[in-house]
């Protein structure tokens, strides 16, 4: 791991340092979150805007239920900001389902220009970073950023039919059910809740882990790589941040990532969205949560309120995604992973 060279230094500009994009006009003006029933019973249960009563929510399939979650998060966001859907220039959204149908089907009813994104569970940071870039560059005034995942829909696609009984190893993770929509704006006036100041799109890293029940281990090297590049480009260390969150490395991946970072000279104490979304003592989620909604839910329920309320001056969120499919692992391929890092700052600090 220490032998890995940092990304080839690009021509430094005002808006970019190494691989890291720097923003001045990218504000988060609000977020809306809906979580599933299991997430609702977790430690953050009281901090979501809405809890789904069950996994189906009156829809006729898990996939429709996931789309419904995302569309509902969007309408809640509009209500909160007193906006109409036409007030957004663009929708950036992604999920875990094949062909990202949850996002596409939600977008069908939203009448907005739509770019569908897929980076597995790293999609949230990817979408937020791209939205910040589009706003900062002046291409968009206001972008809606959304991700969703659904436990049952993911189970049947990646693993087994939902009612099939199987015993999972302790390193397995639990795909979160939920959806989050975030508004990113170029000119936020009074209502900015936080600023996105830097975004490092990560490289795809593969350390040869083949077991899809070891996603934390598969993603830890990607998270370490992106975090080291992000902090290196910004010339910052642990003391410059209130908290540093990884996406869903969970209880297996976090210590691995910390150890890989120590080898690169960064002694960081990482928090992890997958670890904090559930209560591992009382909820049988094994190593922790995962899913495209995982880091988004923790962002909406803990990180953004923390920035808004002044608990944190500056945070880093590094969402992590494992880029395998059922076809690739059945064919014996290892699991490539990617992580994208964002720095967000409280508006008062800016």
């Amino acid at each position, binding site marked *: 791991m220490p032998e890995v060279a940092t990304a080839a230094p690009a021509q430094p500009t005002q808006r970019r340092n190494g691989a890291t994009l720097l923003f001045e006009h990218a504000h988060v003006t609000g977020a809306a979150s809906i979580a599933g029933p299991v997430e609702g019973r977790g430690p953050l249960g009281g901090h979501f805007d809405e809890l789904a009563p069950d996994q189906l929510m009156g829809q006729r399939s898990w996939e429709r239920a996931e789309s419904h979650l995302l569309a509902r998060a969007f309408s809640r966001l509009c209500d909160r900001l007193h906006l109409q859907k036409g007030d957004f220039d663009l929708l950036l959204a992604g999920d875990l389902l094949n062909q990202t149908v949850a996002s596409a089907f939600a977008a069908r009813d939203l009448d907005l220009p739509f770019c569908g994104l897929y980076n597995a569970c790293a999609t949230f940071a990817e979408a937020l970073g791209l939205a910040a870039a589009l706003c900062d560059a002046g291409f968009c005034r206001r972008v809606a950023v959304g991700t969703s995942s659904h436990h049952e829909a993911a189970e049947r696609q990646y693993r087994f039919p939902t*009612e099939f009984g199987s015993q999972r190893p302790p390193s397995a993770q639990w795909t979160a059910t939920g959806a989050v929509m975030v508004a990113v704006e170029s000119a936020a006036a009074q209502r900015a809740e936080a600023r996105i100041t830097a975004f490092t799109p990560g490289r795809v890293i593969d350390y040869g882990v083949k077991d899809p029940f070891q996603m934390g281990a598969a993603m830890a090297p990607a998270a370490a790589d992106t975090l080291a590049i992000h902090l290196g480009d910004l010339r910052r260390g642990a003391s410059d941040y209130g908290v540093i969150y990884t996406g869903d490395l969970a209880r297996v991946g976090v210590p691995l990532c910390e150890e890989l970072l120590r080898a690169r000279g960064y002694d960081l104490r990482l928090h992890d969205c997958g670890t904090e979304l559930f209560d591992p003592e009382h909820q049988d989620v094994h190593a922790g949560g995962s899913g495209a909604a995982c880091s988004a839910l923790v962002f909406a329920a803990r990180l953004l309120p923390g920035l808004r309320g002044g608990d944190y001056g500056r945070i880093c969120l590094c969402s992590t995604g494992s880029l395998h499919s059922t076809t690739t692992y059945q064919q014996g391929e290892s699991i490539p992973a990617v992580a994208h890092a964002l720095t967000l700052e409280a508006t008062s600090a800016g």
Partner: protein
Amino acid sequence: MQADDKQQAHYRQLLRRHVPRPPVARNTLLAFLVGGSICAVSQIFMNTYLRHGLSPEKAGALTAVTVVFIGAALTALGLYDEIVRVAGMGGSLPISGFSNSVVAPAMEFRREGWVLGVGARIFTIAGPVVTFGLLASILIGAGYLVFHLPLPR
């Protein structure tokens, strides 16, 4: 970036220290208790059928049918996957587990219709058991034929 062999070997060492091992003793005990209970209940059915005058062959078949039905019913009620989560092979190995592996995909893929959903995917999990079970029986049958062994009664 694909890590080279040396990096991968180094990482595998790191994994050995950090990846938790399954609680084998606890899992084995639970598998024994739950699997054993399923067998004990099955035996109660068997004895009852025998007491009502069924031949051992018919009583055995009827017991299998009964346990398959119970497995299917518990799957439909959303309980069987909870049993296996705790008991592992203790829940998967009895014929009620086989029943679960057929009924679960039938329920899951009903939304894709009767033909391409239920019909095509009902043996998604049990298919390999049927395929290799057939293959094994053909091979053993061929063995009896070639070596002129007396067929078991």
